């Protein structure tokens, strides 16, 4: 039985942590973190086979945040899951922090893949998924890419290889929030139609509402049952979803909350607790 309310609260807490991290440390990417909050909540608090007390467990499921700039959301999920203290969250991007500006596996407990430079995560996830096949281990690999990121040719090198090799323990979420740094993806890079592209490379595809917990859970369940192909889940999302004043304003791609905005976030998302 999926506890939808619990997972929705996990997602709310991720968004609230992102606000706290960006407000206190005065840096980071708020709205790209918000758009993946629900997907991360489902993966870390429901779907993934993981054990925070054994972060190097060889048969754990793996997660790759290809759009590494959304790492405040990932750091929140990891801290709330118990990989490290929530006290660390407010050290984001500060000197000597374990929470680098983009994910760095050797420093941050629970981070499976170093990312940040866009376009690489599907390939890294493919390597992890192939390693399971070679080592005869049973685990799933989940990757989240952005939609602007689909402009990187390497994404499609990986899509072709994974489809060709029928790597079924690999699932890629496309966080289709329709924006990249310079504006809408339609205007800047033209990735549509997205679902058809993955299908053409031999992937099983699904389209979901990336903020609907139930749909995310079910899509992951379906992806697991696909045993002859990798899975792409095109998640329609809203950049900044969760705080109305961020929605539709792409300056929140990278921006710091003012005191007034922070107070508004507290009203919308609740007070912050470690």
């Amino acid at each position, binding site marked *: 039985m999926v506890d939808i309310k619990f997972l929705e609260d996990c997602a709310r807490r991720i968004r609230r942590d992102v606000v706290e991290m960006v407000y206190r440390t005065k840096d980071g990417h708020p709205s790209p973190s918000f758009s993946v909050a629900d997907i991360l909540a489902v993966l870390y608090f429901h779907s993934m086979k993981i054990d925070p007390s054994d972060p190097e467990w060889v048969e754990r499921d793996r997660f790759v945040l290809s759009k590494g700039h959304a790492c405040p959301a990932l750091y929140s999920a990891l801290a709330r899951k118990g990989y490290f203290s929530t006290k660390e969250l407010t050290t984001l991007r500060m000197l000597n922090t374990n929470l680098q500006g983009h994910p760095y596996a050797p420093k941050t407990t629970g981070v499976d893949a*170093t990312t940040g430079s866009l376009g690489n995560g599907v390939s890294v996830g493919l390597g992890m998924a192939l390693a*399971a096949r070679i080592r005869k281990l049973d685990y799933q690999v989940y990757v989240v890419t952005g939609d602007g990121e689909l402009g990187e040719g390497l994404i499609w090198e*990986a899509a072709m290889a994974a489809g060709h090799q029928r790597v079924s323990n690999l699932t890629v979420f496309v966080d289709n929030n329709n924006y990249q740094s310079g504006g809408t993806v339609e205007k800047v890079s033209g990735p549509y139609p997205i679902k058809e592209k993955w299908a053409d490379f031999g992937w099983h595809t699904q389209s979901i509402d990336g903020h609907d917990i139930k749909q995310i859970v079910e899509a992951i369940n379906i992806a697991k049952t696909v045993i002859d192909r990798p899975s792409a889940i095109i998640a329609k999302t809203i950049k900044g979803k969760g705080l109305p004043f961020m929605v539709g304003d792409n300056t929140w791609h990278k921006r710091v909350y003012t005191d007034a905005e922070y107070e508004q976030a507290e009203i919308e998302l609740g007070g912050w607790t470690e």
Partner: protein
Amino acid sequence: MSEQVDSTRIGFRDGLIDLAEKRDDVVFVSTDSLMIVKAEPFLERWPERVIELGIAEQNGVAVSSGLASSGLIPYICTYAGFLTMRACEQMRTFVGYPKLKVRFIGANGGLYGGNREGVSHQFIEDVGLLRTIPGFTILCPADGGQVHQAMLASVDIDGPVYIRIGSGKEKKMFSDSTPFPIGKIRIIEDFGNDVALLTYGFTLGRVIEAARSLKERGIGAKVVEVATIKPLDTEGIKAVLDKTGCVVTIEDHTIIGGLGSAVAELIAEEIPASLVRLGLQDVYGESGFPEELLDKYGMSIDDIMTAATQVIVKKN
């Protein structure tokens, strides 16, 4: 199993087979490069340990990152520039930075390695590019047997390793069982203290010949093989320079960024000595046979002898 033990490509393949026999974490990542190293015997024995990714080097390196972070030791082999230039960022950010044990084998190193293929397949910048990236071990063996030995010696090194190989038409320089001395220079010939000739890879043979000719003219040269470019054996090189006071570096690589630059840095900071750098003088090569290319681009035996004579004059 070797049909041509002097071939660096076969040296790689045979080293990989040796490693795979002993340990099950060794895998081969091919970017449609299986045939260039005649790896069919590996494929026949361990088909599940060959990851064929097609002509897609960035994907090859990033997939290798994922393999390495999941407990395997991937060996990715293709043309040197397709790794170090096309996939340079993947080598840096996804392998070097997280300190992963990916092994890169770069073929067609230098004019000698690329020879008749021409500039697009002659890689004269690989060593220099990688030298700027923290954490890489850079190995440049002189022949096939040394590549084989370098493979065995480097398997357990932490972090990434780059091994430069050629076209498969190299001359044999060492007996097959000669160990590869990671991190140490090797004095190959010692005819005196007049000048040091530092080199690596496929120029070693002609440097030895030059040293012998110099000896006939009464000039005592030391031939020093620097097959590990990084980490550089600075103590070993300083001990040599302490005796000779001057040095010629000879490398089938641009003089910018490679061994010549590394020695210049050492001289500038730690041990004053005169230096002449032979190699490509900030130019591209062209198609041709290996030996004639080295001759044309400033690495002939005469060039080496002339440089040795000049650097001794500079010293004095």
